[in-house]
């Protein structure tokens, strides 16, 4: 349903207008923090603030309750201005237990709001978090933050006593305390509860008791803020001045799935996905599996290799074919990626990167699979690689990747990461009629008896996509080296050199289609920040900040990481220093230094977390002339 800006219930208390805020909900992984954060995000998006989110949850489905390993958190940055990151420091932190306090307090700014569920700080809870003293009794918290000790469990129990009398269990009552916390934060930031009430109706339509309980908890939270003397003021954040149009909130994996379906429609194709479940890519499989009526066929394969090879089979059959995975799965797909490259068929290989190597940090983000994408196969096997820069961009990256894959008859690797995949932002809803068609030609039937030439190339060096069932085009392809034009198996030395050069040239030719590298900021200057993938928002914000302080700093963000735009070398030389911040140990930097002989500096971190803007500004300042 569409809505314009909501009427917010008015608080009788003093309201302070602020430009933006970053808040985080943290609790045990069973406390419903993700749903709380998600509801806050939706509501805030509806008010018209710009938003960026960062869900952060443990690798274990249910780590032991109350422990440090079991803490689940959801961060939301919302603003009356354009924002590109989920924020550095927290303005407000809500914690449900000591473990959540211990693991998250370091991110709360001094003087920030700290709301604690004091009922979650019993002796046993403290022991689980490895505490001997109750931190809520310490003067340090009182001194450094605006501390609010709220007995959420008891208040919710009181608010729901009628429902308890009617048979609702203690456990069910207790589970509503996240909605109490949500209600309190809604009060604090002047949010309307309507969207959440609608959500409850949709989600629990057949469980009226659950709807009533959560509604009461939500209301109790709001009322607590309004009536308790502890809270003297709440905050107001005006709507952001975004590009006019209709918006929705979208996360990266949903945007990717929708982009893929849209690419199929724009190319008059049906979509086949061969996939094997893996965090954080599985949600693309889940989303696509819902759309059989749109001709989407999802195949949950027995392993990663079957996932990609089934997609190769479907592509050979003339369908739009995709495989989705994360780094470890992509490693298993390596040989088949090489096959698809030799077959010269369209295929999208989507990698939602996570912390590595091996199983690494499955639920944490990293962008350390760049080498894998560009180099991670046997033999000379260059492929186009495109990287999404944010949740909404995943939609357009999917379209672009498919356009290139079919135009050049080449598999394309698409990089996203856990941060983009699960993070969300406002998305200007596109209209199908305004999106560019993706024209695809298949080799037509031949009935004149002439021999079909499966590797005869066009002006882009692409071979024809000839699909089984087409008369007169019977031919055999495979992983062995091909003779150019005929496609026959061929081991001649000169032919292998020629084919290797041709395939590489074909990938280089993609640069003709992607346009020159653009730069935000001055044309020449002291520092160029060169970024790729999910660090876009932090880099952009940091550079804007530096520019506003009068520094000659610019930002270039690579969308295609292979091939590089034609003018990239020339762009790099226009600045005295080049800084390449990456959530890896310097992979793009190595490629850039090797190709352009530029003394690029790195800012590198692998902590499972995105860059804070402050980390970037510090690094940029160090490169500025003294």
């Amino acid at each position, binding site marked *: 349903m*569409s809505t314009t800006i909501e009427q917010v219930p008015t608080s009788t208390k003093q309201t302070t207008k602020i430009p933006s805020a970053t808040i985080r909900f943290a609790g045990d992984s069973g406390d419903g923090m993700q749903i709380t954060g998600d509801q806050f995000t939706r509501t805030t998006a509806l008010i018209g603030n710009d938003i960026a989110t960062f869900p952060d949850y443990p690798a274990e489905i249910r780590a032991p309750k109350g422990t440090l390993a079991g803490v689940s958190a959801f961060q939301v940055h919302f603003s009356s201005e354009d924002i590109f990151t989920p924020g550095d420091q927290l303005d407000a932190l809500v914690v449900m237990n000591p473990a959540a306090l211990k693991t998250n307090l370091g991110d709360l700014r001094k003087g920030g709001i700290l709301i604690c569920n004091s009922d979650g700080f019993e002796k046993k809870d403290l022991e689980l978090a490895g505490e001997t003293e109750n931190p809520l009794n310490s003067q340090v918290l009182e001194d450094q933050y605006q501390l609010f000790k709220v007995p959420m469990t008891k208040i919710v129990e009181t608010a729901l006593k009628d429902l308890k009398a009617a048979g609702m269990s203690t456990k069910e009552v207790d589970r509503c305390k996240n909605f109490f916390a949500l209600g309190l934060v809604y009060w604090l930031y002047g949010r309307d509860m309507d969207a959440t009430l609608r959500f409850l109706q949709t989600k629990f339509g057949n469980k009226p008791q659950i709807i009533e309980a959560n509604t009461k908890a939500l209301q109790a939270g709001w009322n607590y803020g309004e009536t308790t003397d502890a809270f003297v003021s709440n905050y107001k954040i005006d709507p952001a001045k975004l590009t006019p149009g209709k918006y929705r909130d979208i996360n990266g994996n949903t945007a990717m799935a929708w982009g893929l379906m849209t690419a199929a429609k724009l190319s008059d194709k049906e979509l086949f996905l061969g996939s094997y479940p893996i965090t954080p890519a599985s949600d693309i499989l889940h989303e696509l599996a819902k759309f059989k*009526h749109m001709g989407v066929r999802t195949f949950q*394969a027995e392993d990663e290799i079957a996932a990609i090879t089934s997609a190769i089979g*479907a592509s050979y*059959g003339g369908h739009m074919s995709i495989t989705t995975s994360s780094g470890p799965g992509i490693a298993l797909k390596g040989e088949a990626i090489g096959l698809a490259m030799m077959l010269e068929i369209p295929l999208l290989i989507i990698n939602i990167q996570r912390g590595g190597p091996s199983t690494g940090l499955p639920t944490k983000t990293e962008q350390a699979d760049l080498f894998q994408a560009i180099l991670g196969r046997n033999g000379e096997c260059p492929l186009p690689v495109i990287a999404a820069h944010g949740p909404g961009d995943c939609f357009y990256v999917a379209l672009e990747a498919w356009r290139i894959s079919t135009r050049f008859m080449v598999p394309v690797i698409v990089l996203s990461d856990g941060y983009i995949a699960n993070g969300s932002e406002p998305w200007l809803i596109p209209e199908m009629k305004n999106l560019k068609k993706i024209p695809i030609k298949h080799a037509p039937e031949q009935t004149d008896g002439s021999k079909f030439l499966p590797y005869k190339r066009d002006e882009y060096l692409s071979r024809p996509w000839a699909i089984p069932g087409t008369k007169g085009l*019977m031919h055999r392809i*495979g992983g062995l080296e091909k003779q150019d034009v005929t496609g026959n198996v061929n081991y001649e030395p000169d032919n292998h050199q020629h084919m290797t050069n041709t395939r590489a040239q074909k990938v280089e030719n993609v640069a003709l289609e992607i346009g020159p590298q653009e730069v935000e900021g001055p044309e020449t200057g002291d520092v160029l920040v060169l970024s790729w993938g999910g660090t876009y928002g932090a880099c952009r914000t940091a550079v804007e900040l530096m520019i506003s302080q009068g520094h000659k700093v610019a930002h270039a963000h690579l969308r295609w990481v292979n091939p590089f735009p034609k003018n990239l070398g020339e762009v790099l030389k226009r600045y005295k220093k080049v800084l390449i911040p990456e959530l890896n140990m310097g992979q793009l930097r190595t490629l850039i230094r090797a190709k352009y002989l530029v003394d690029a500096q790195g800012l590198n971190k692998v902590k499972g977390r995105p860059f804070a803007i402050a980390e970037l500004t510090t690094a940029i300042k160090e490169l500025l002339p003294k």
Partner: protein
Amino acid sequence: MANDVTPVLTASDFGSDQDVRWCPGCGDYSILAQMKKVMPQLGVARENVVFISGIGCSSRFPYYMNTYGMHSIHGRAPAIATGLKCVRPDLQVWVVTGDGDGLSIGGNHFLHLMRRNVDLKILLFNNRIYGLTKGQYSPTSPLGKLNKSAPMGVIDNPLNPLSVAIGCEATFVARSIDVNIKHLGEVLKRAAEHKGTAFVEIYQNCNIFNDGAFEYATSKDSKLDTTVELEHGKPLIFGKNKNKGIRLNGTEPEVVELGKGISEDDLLFHDEKAPEATHAYLLSRMRHPEFPEPIGVFRAVDQPKYDVELNKQVAAAREKKGSGDLDALFNSGETWTVS
């Protein structure tokens, strides 16, 4: 010139222009010849036939057929064929594999293909050795076999391909022999006509690295005593003089001689349509030299086919929800307008 009349094709129409490069005397030649001979009898146009293979000597097969074909990567042909069949149920898809390709590196895909019952045909050329990599033991090499990678003899218990297939609930399971050309042709035809995954094990001689592995089953002198041809509804009778049979003793098969108080009615009758796979499994356990080895169709039952079911779901979803509208999807849920 497009016309609707299917021209009458012969075996040679199914041969490609590529030189066949198996070793002289390889059993693969015979299988290729039978395949080319069977093809015109199936009434399927060449452009609607696809051969997909993995890696190994057998996997060169697609190059030699004038159909569509893909020579892919080691062990993965079943998965490629599954993807193809999911989106193109109109095609007749064959997978050609060997004992190493299909059962070793591709073992996982093999078992999932069988249990899904995708409507495609899989031919496993079993020569009990690695040919292309020159003579290492394979998952079907017998215990004690001396070879390059097991100079003191194989200590891996061999797999029985038919038992594995039947264990995975394969709906069509058959065995034939490269040089038994008439039998092989018939089995290939039965496989082609089966709806669902048809699995055919073909005893194939590698005259370079494992010559004579199946001599007991192929030599004129012994084959009538060492093999038994399965026929649906018929008793299991074998031997030069058709005087021996297989009888069940409790749940165990035994070889008996006809006459002397034992008649045909006492024998085990073959039932390829038995809904439970127990009977087919029992037959797959009969190994030389204790038993004659069955050849022919062990099992042929009708079960739901993965590709058919998948496409049924697509049709059912369309019937229920229409063909979908992306604009409506983008605008679903909570939206807001910035002016």
